């Protein structure tokens, strides 16, 4: 279990992490979300003791990390997957870490096989791809079979097969009773992997909740429907305080009313409905709503691409004479 209690870190007078508290519990995957520059990596570094907090405490299994007799067994971490001498082989790289806790070479081979690097164990890591570095980082974290795990952006550079493997591995590790903290920018992946999420923005805690509760709190809701009497229903929806707009594939989207309200409204006026689906916000929509005021780096609004009536611009007309 990882406990972060009122941790603050300032650089040049600016609080990068500001009075942050949360708990990573065993048995579940906790997603760690936040916009770029929100302080996620700094927080993870403070948990691992690489960065000293200005105030606050971090406990791993109830003890400050630097007081563990078996630090590798308390917390396995992948913070910077490209750590390592490029001229060293994957096996030697892991062996050097394993030696500190007197972990045998059989375990080194075991974790290399587990992450799929068994066949390249004797290759220099300088020639590894990003995905291979990620796998090596995971192997390093798993060396001492720790009770808590922390992965910073573990699926960066992984191919679809690797992402699926990582998702399964992380879930399995949590199911074995470990506390797992995982940061990622890929919300769709987090929605599939994490049970619980901690959202931070500008170094402060924004949300600490289950994924379903977080999505449930989102204002982004609506109803998708199909009806042959769209003009009539549109007037009724507007008069009831809602809005109806065109949806995908000839469907319509209603905002501002629930599916029950739309269904009752249609039934009361004898309007036929062929489909009525309540829309749920995605984790991504919930995240964007939550962090709207906390984005540090924002690109210029470039709007949606305009849809050409004639089709994509690169269509080529072939004239047959």
């Amino acid at each position, binding site marked *: 279990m990882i406990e972060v209690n009122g941790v603050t870190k300032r650089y040049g007078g600016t609080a990068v992490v500001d009075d942050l508290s949360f708990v990573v519990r065993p048995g579940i995957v906790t997603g760690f979300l936040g916009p770029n520059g929100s302080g996620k990596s700094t927080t993870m570094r403070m948990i*691992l003791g690489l960065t000293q907090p200005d105030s606050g405490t971090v406990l791993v299994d109830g003890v400050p*990390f630097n007081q563990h007799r*078996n*630090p590798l*067994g308390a917390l396995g971490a992948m913070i*910077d997957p490209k750590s390592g001498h490029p001229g060293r082989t994957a096996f030697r790289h892991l*062996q050097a870490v394993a030696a500190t806790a007197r972990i045998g070479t059989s375990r080194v081979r075991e974790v290399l096989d587990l992450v799929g690097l068994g066949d390249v164990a004797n290759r220099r890591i300088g020639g590894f791809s990003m995905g291979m570095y990620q796998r090596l980082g995971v192997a390093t974290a798993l060396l001492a079979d*720790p009770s808590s795990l922390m992965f910073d952006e573990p699926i960066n550079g992984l191919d679809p097969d690797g992402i699926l493997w990582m998702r399964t591995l992380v879930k399995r590790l949590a199911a*074995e009773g470990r506390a797992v903290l995982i940061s990622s920018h890929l919300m769709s992946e987090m929605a599939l992997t994490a049970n619980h999420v901690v959202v931070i923005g500008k170094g402060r805690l924004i949300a*600490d909740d289950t994924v379903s509760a977080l999505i449930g709190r989102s204002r982004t809701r609506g109803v998708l429907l199909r009806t042959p009497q769209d003009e009539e229903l549109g007037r009724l929806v507007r008069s009831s305080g809602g809005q109806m707009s065109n949806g995908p594939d000839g469907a319509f989207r209603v905002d501002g009313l629930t599916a029950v309200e739309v269904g009752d409204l249609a039934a009361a006026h004898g309007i036929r409905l062929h489909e009525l689906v309540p829309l749920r916000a995605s984790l991504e929509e919930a995240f964007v709503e939550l962090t709207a005021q906390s984005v540090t780096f924002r690109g210029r609004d470039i709007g949606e691409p305009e849809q050409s009536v004639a089709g994509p611009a690169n269509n080529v007309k072939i004239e047959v004479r």
Partner: protein
Amino acid sequence: MSTATEVDAPLRRHVPPTHELTFGGLLRSELIKLVTARSLVVLLIMVALCTAGLSIPVAFFTDPEAQQSAAEVLPTFVNTTLIGMQLSIFLIAAIGAVAGASDFGNGTIRLAFGAAPRRTPVLAAKLVAVGGVSAGLVAVTIFVTAVVNWLALTPGPMGTPLTDRTTILSLIGAVVATAGVSVSAISLGCLLRSSAGAIFAILGLLIVLTIALMTVPAEVLPSAISRHSLGMAVTTLLESANDTGRWLGAVAALTAWSAALAGGAVLSMRRRDV
């Protein structure tokens, strides 16, 4: 601030296998890192080649004066045996600087601190491993060089150099100089976190500072101070130890320099983020 919501987590908790962080384990880790870094291994081989390769040919081409006894050959024996160390000591400095700084450059230090979060033992293990290997290599190379040189210089009994205090101190001095320079260079590497910066710094201390201090008139700066610069202490230990007092002073000065730089490295490692 926290808005924690309780989550139904299984009661099962993973208990990790029993492993323990030990200094012996850290030492082994540093040795693995040293022998698997090709640049450092190449430099270590060059140390052995320079130490023996410059000394032995000189001994073979030295023409001892006729009728010299074995005891009379000893000063020539010491000088020829230590000739290669004049260059090797700079290679030792480079090895230490690179070994100290490279872990910071390639991120290995984050893995080391993740495994040993108290940090100071990591530096201690690095000093013992790199300094020990360097000093051990120089000791073995000097011993082999000394045997070959003795056979080349005189038909006298092999035990003669062992009976001469000056000879023994001179040869030991080279090993002490190696250990001191190595510790200083590793510490500078950890302080500056840059291989190039650390190499320039240790060479600056060994050469530039020494020359600069020597140019200052004795009325401005007492000669005792310039005598105890890092470079002068090392130079003294790589010469024949005719003056035991001066030799002991050089050992003390080198120890003080090494301890000061190592102390700075400890403070830096404990306080600075990585």
